[in-house]
């Protein structure tokens, strides 16, 4: 199988699996005080907190592990928004966020919060002037993302952080700034101080860790309250027994990520460029979705193939054991075209023929070359069957 859908989820690295096995079978006690096995498990969790914290310029007690990236986003957004004592509260995000963020915002809107959705340009980059213009004394939350999961746009997090910090100074209160870093972690380094983030969400399964574990950075002093309740022995913010097996896996994944980070990013960039060049050379009538070159994350490549539909392309590739994703309405559970592609100005038809390739450090030149070799005749064949023709033909 050639797996080019690594944003959805990555393969668990063999070293990660080994660490999880040890945690599950040899270190299965619940983190606790005094006993050897309990403190061993507690140290496992602390080690993981330390490693992630060190990687993002935070301290150990500013990192908690959650049940997923989605749970981290929920704790950050509900927990911190609720904790703000703001009159007629308003919340700010963009129109191209990850579904978890948008779902929480819709739910908060039902609770009476007024939401602002920042627009993006044709490459998916935030309109920072608009961000600047909507911040005021009522703002209770700003949530933005590091890399857009569909089109790979690297977002200007630090510039946004400066704008939010200035607005905070102006209103005399810290406006909380949440960053969804789940799709960025694989290719972008993060310094929470440089970005001026108060809350950052992470997901383990985007970086060759297991599913079912995420993490949340909470800057010391950030107003936040828990959204679930239970035993607080691990953390008041994430009550209950921590998933030590998942945390051990996530920790190993973080260790591996940073051990070869620059080399891996360069490797992925080489592959996405190679794939992009091949597509441009062999397939006419295409549109690149998202930025070309440096503005796009090394892992992402999203093209629209005009006159045909993406689910059909995806399924033909799948029969050849090549896994990709599409923004086509036909493949969506909602029958709607991908909202991110619509936000960058694509029409239904253009969104329909979209295919997203997301690579990982394990992807190879042979993977990319095989995918391209299979893709070209699939596109030609579907175009020959289509009711729509290029204008010239």
């Amino acid at each position, binding site marked *: 199988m050639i797996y080019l859908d690594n944003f959805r989820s990555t393969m668990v690295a063999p070293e990660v699996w080994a660490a999880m096995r040890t945690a599950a079978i040899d270190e299965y006690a619940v983190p606790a005080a005094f006993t050897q096995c309990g403190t061993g498990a507690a140290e496992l969790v602390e080690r993981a907190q330390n490693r992630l914290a060190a990687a993002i310029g935070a301290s150990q007690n500013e990192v908690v592990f959650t049940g997923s990236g989605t749970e981290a986003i929920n704790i950050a957004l509900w927990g911190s928004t609720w904790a703000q004592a703001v009159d007629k509260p308003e919340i700010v995000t963009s129109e191209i966020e990850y579904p978890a963020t948008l779902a929480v915002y*819709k739910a908060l809107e039902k609770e009476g919060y007024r939401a602002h959705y920042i627009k993006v340009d044709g490459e998916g980059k935030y309109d920072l002037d608009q961000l600047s213009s909507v911040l005021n004394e009522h703002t209770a939350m700003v949530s933005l993302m590091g890399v857009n999961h569909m089109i790979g746009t690297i977002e200007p997090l630090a510039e946004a952080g400066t704008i939010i910090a200035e607005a905070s100074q102006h209103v005399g209160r810290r406006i909380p700034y949440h960053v969804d870093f789940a799709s960025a972690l694989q290719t972008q380094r993060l310094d929470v101080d440089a970005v001026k983030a108060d809350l950052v969400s992470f997901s383990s399964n985007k970086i060759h860790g297991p599913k079912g574990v995420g993490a949340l950075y909470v800057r010391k002093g950030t107003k936040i309250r828990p959204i679930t309740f239970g035993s607080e022995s691990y953390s008041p913010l994430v009550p209950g027994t921590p998933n030590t097996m998942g945390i051990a896996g996530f920790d190993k994944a973080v260790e591996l990520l940073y051990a070869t980070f620059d080399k891996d990013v360069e490797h992925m960039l080489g592959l996405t460029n190679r794939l992009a060049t091949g597509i441009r050379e062999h397939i006419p009538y295409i549109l690149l979705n998202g930025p070309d070159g440096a503005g796009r994350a090394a892992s992402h490549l999203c093209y629209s193939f005009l*006159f*045909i*539909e993406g*689910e*059909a392309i995806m*399924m*033909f590739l799948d*029969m050849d054991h090549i896994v990709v994703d599409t923004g*086509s*309405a*036909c*493949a969506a*559970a*909602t*029958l*709607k*075209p991908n909202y991110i592609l619509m936000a960058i100005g694509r*029409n*239904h*038809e253009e969104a*329909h023929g979209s295919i997203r390739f997301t690579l990982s450090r394990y992807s190879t030149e042979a993977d990319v070359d095989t995918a391209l070799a299979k893709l070209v005749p699939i596109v030609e064949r579907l175009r020959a*069957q*289509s*009711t*729509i023709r290029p204008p010239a033909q």
Partner: protein
Amino acid sequence: MAIKYTTKVIEHFKNPHNIGVIENADACATEGSPACGDEITVYLKIDKATDRIEDVKFQSYGCASNIATGSIITDLAKGKTIDEAEAITWKQAADELGGLPPVKMHCSVLAVDGLRSAIRKYKKEMKGIDYDSTLDVKTVTEELKHVLWPPVGVDIITLKMVKYIGIDQGAVRVEISVGSDDKFLDPTINEIVEHVSKIRGVKSVNVENV
């Protein structure tokens, strides 16, 4: 629940029967629209003495089930008289494929609509049978029977989701009842507009969720 296609759908998608164009076809019709995500064109060659479909081909801009349903309806229609072929239902087409996921049943409706439209064009031209009926509540209701509610793949009339149909000098108002944040609301409104707009005399379509 995992949504997957039957082996038969996959077979017809991989190797669609009767794909292509008939030059000098006796009738040809296109249904759907690229903006709505799927479109099918059906071509017919008809023996004028017997009214039998000698050859049928189709082209498809759409997903796997769109291609597979195009393939199966052309198989079903070939060799039949135009009256027999016109009576093929979308349920029959889907059953022939071993079933379709509910969310994909509209592809079957589209394929059958394409076939019927081509047959009706032929009947109109050759026999003077005019199917374009007057714009009234009954015609709109009939047309709305072609709009399926995606989660269950059953039409919105049968499901009693249409609460009101009003017509005023070509302006059609359709009131439906769906949860305001239902994820299928927007695509269903688009489908209603697409279908009702096809009826002769319709100047505008306004769908309200009440």
